[in-house]
């Protein structure tokens, strides 16, 4: 931990990004804010970040783009998030955030490897204009994965992403959006006592309407009682 309570993994990530490293893999259990940080860390313009969520059904066309009818009887090629990130809002490249890369199928993974290759090797021909595109100089890629062990990540991906950071705590900025009494729970839960950030956001919002007990029951199910007990003790005398 640093002095300002920011978990050290996020300091590592900020350092890596600030140093100009353009390929970073964040891995670790879900609900710790990997995607949030990937989209926002050292990125002043959130519109210049492009997100791609890998599933088993994701196709390579959804990465680079696809032909779509334009309403006038013809078809236009709409570029996908990877190409949009190559170009960025200013033509210099943006940030591509690829979530849950470990769930991508073989075809998609191959396509992703091509898109995230080094700037010298990466190129793509636009099917509509036949123009050869290359990633802009500011193009960066942050991939996230829910694997606990980096050994579970495909070797080819590891080769392209030598900078891998295990994320075990949510970033302070994401935690500070919670009410104060829930922040420590979000930051310091361990093992089975870890509380996913998204669940805490939902609980925080819901309890304003129906109280702690009902909100905890709806969001955390059987674990709700333990959370409410902790909150009761935290509030005693306050």
């Amino acid at each position, binding site marked *: 931990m640093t002095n300002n309570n920011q978990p050290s993994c996020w300091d590592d990530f900020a350092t890596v990004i600030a140093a100009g490293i353009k390929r970073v893999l964040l891995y670790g259990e879900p609900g710790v804010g990997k995607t949030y940080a990937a989209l926002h860390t050292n990125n002043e313009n959130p519109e210049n970040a492009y997100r791609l969520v890998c599933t088993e059904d994701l196709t390579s066309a959804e990465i680079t783009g696809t032909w779509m009818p334009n309403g006038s009887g013809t078809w236009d090629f709409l570029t996908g998030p990877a190409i949009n990130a190559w170009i960025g809002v200013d033509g210099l490249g943006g940030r591509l955030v690829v979530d849950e890369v470990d769930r991508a199928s073989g075809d998609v993974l191959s396509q992703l490897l091509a898109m995230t290759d080094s700037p010298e090797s990466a190129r793509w021909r636009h099917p509509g204009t036949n123009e050869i595109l290359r990633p802009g100089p500011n193009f960066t890629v942050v991939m996230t994965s829910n694997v606990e062990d980096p050994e579970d990540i495909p070797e080819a991906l590891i080769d392209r992403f030598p900078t891998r950071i295990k994320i075990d705590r949510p970033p302070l900025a994401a935690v500070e959006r919670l009410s104060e009494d829930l922040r420590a729970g979000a930051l310091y*839960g361990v093992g089975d006592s870890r509380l996913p950030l998204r669940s805490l956001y939902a609980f925080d919002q819901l309890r304003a309407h129906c109280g702690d007990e009902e909100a905890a029951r709806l969001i955390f199910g059987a674990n709700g009682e333990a959370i409410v007990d902790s909150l009761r003790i935290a509030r*005693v005398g*306050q």
Partner: protein
Amino acid sequence: MKTYDRTAAPGPKKSASIKVYPAIAAQRNDGFVPGPWTIEEGRAMRGAASCDVNNRVLQVPGAPDQVARLVRAHELTHARVSPTGDVLERAWAEGIHPHALACAEEARVNFLVAQAGFDVEFLCDGTEKDAGEKVAQLGDWPEALCFAAAAKGTGAEKPYLAGIRKGNKDWVTPMRQVLKRIIEILEEQSTSYIASTELLESGYPLGFEATTLPIARLLTTYMSAEIPDGPEALRAFKRGLHPGNRRPVSGKFANLVWLDQPEFERVNLRGDTRKSRPSLSGVSMRYPNRYLTDPQKRVMGKKARADGGIVIIDQSGSMDLSADVVREFAKRHPRARLVGYSHRPGDGGVTPNAWILAANGKVATSEIPANIGNGVDGPILRWAISQRRGSEPLVWVCDGQVTDSHDHPGHHLSVECAELVAKHKIRIVPNLYEVANALAHPRGVRPSEYPRLGRVGRVLADRSKKN
């Protein structure tokens, strides 16, 4: 409640699969460093669950039943309010008994668990009645009292007191009186005070100082109290429960705690006294000149009687002693030892109650604690007897009043001291001015001196009548 040095805290270990959230509960403002907790599997039994706040380790049962839930709530409350760092060590250094402090903190935590809305009736493991009976049969009043405080207000209280009654019914009423006072201390404060971890200038957290410390002091005092044996004694016992009132009778002397005295000042510049004196007979001719000068021709040397001795002086409030008097004593009796004593009533072994005032022609330069009571008359006499060389004089400077560790007189204490005086021929004198004569004429106390020797004198008089 455990205490460890926070700086030496190891990293988090792999936690047990128990749904418990100490990080949420530990909302503190005493500089506690938040961080991940290690959860260990415990049981819903006394001693099988704990909270180590400094190292952030919580040992709790994971069962889904109400007892386990209450045990988890209890340990989480420790995580919320119990002190960190060296707070406990500092309280111990004040003379508060460690067990009393731990049980006082248990009482505060259980009170707060109830205030948080938990049904503390579930805080019992079924062993309390047997435990109460056993501890009463063993006569371990300090342990019995501390445990009762720790169980106060929980489901363990009733069966425990039933066990105490079975083991020794005389303990129940005084124990209830102490427990009643503990609840008064807790209810005198607002819950926000009791639960507060805000650090005060004293270095103690507010809630700890406002409730745990007064309860722990009360327990420390009453752990050594004599069980009252009648209505009058019970009234005195109850009076001592309230601040400002006299402590209860302890019926026991305190243990000796010697003052650390690194330096002494020599006042007898002549050094040691001579070891032989002229005599008509002997084995060596030490004084041949006396053959011409001494009409009695005492030319032989004879071993001089050592003008040493041990003088024990009561320096309680009823006795007075100036530095000049001590210096004069050291000059006149360079081979005697002058030892002072006085006990701070209720002190648990922190404040020194015995010290050397003068020995070998030197006087102590260290500051003597300004205690009030006697408290250690018996132990200091025993110490002096053990230190006595041969038949050297042993003089006790006192007014004949002896008191227990809480500064109450007690007949059996007077008897104890009188027996020592009679058996070991200890001379009692009322002031230091009579010591020179007492050292020169070592003998026991004469019957004519009994009337001016207070309670000890009366016991000696009764004793001589019987004999």
